[in-house]
């Protein structure tokens, strides 16, 4: 199950879910505390010169152990559905 995390506040995520029709879970980390704990902080990269997350994906098994991780080198490049499915297969 995908869980999207960013500094966007809940209202912004709620609006995004509604307008894009997403049904998966969105979590808000407005002070980037969890982002920092995961060492994903991208300082001052936001449009208001604020700290945001760098893009990253982690596939966790039921124990919370990372089975697959992806750190893109270019924020325009994200894993596609095929790549994510292939990673998810390894959990079976």
């Amino acid at each position, binding site marked *: *199950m*995908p*869980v*999207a*995390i*960013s*500094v*966007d506040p*809940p*209202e912004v*995520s*709620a609006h*995004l879910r509604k307008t894009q029709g997403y049904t998966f*879970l*969105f*979590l*808000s*980390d407005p002070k980037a505390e*969890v*982002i920092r*704990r*995961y*060492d*994903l902080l*991208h*300082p001052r*990269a*936001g*449009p208001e010169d604020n700290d*945001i*997350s*760098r*893009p*990253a*994906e*982690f*596939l*966790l*098994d*039921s*124990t*919370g*152990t*990372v*089975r*697959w*991780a992806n*750190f*893109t*080198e*270019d*924020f*325009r*490049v*994200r894993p*596609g559905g095929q790549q*994510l499915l292939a990673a*998810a297969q390894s*959990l*079976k």
Partner: protein
Amino acid sequence: MHPVAMAEATQKRTHWAVWLGLLLTVLGLAGNAVSFARLSSVAFTWLIMAVPVLGAMFLVLGVVPAFRQPQAYRGKLWGSILAALSLLLCAASVLLFVFTRQLPSSRGAPQVGRRVPEFTLPDSSGQPVSLSQLLAGTSGATPPKGVLLVFYRGYW
């Protein structure tokens, strides 16, 4: 118009490199614009960085004959303007490429085989959700085989 001048005028043409350069520049511009859509690959980002560079090269190559052999090639003015614009776009394309790759190294991030740190964050309706809750699943249903955490920049 003098008959010789008329004949010369009809023989004057635009060097083919100008058209190729123009095409590549327009493609490069469009490519860079759409590269922020979800389906960019690493190869694509390299390609659309290089295409405007090639476009600028060909435009310059195609405008030079208009100066060197003005009796045979046209385009001194508008060719020069296009070449200058394409050089600007070429620079912008390279700068954009560098910019979108300036990401922190995140060496301390969770790696394969490690357990991730616990957290509790509000969902889009403001309800706190913890990682252990997500891993355990909702009561009654079978726990999920896994959870995919997708950290993103926000501000979509």
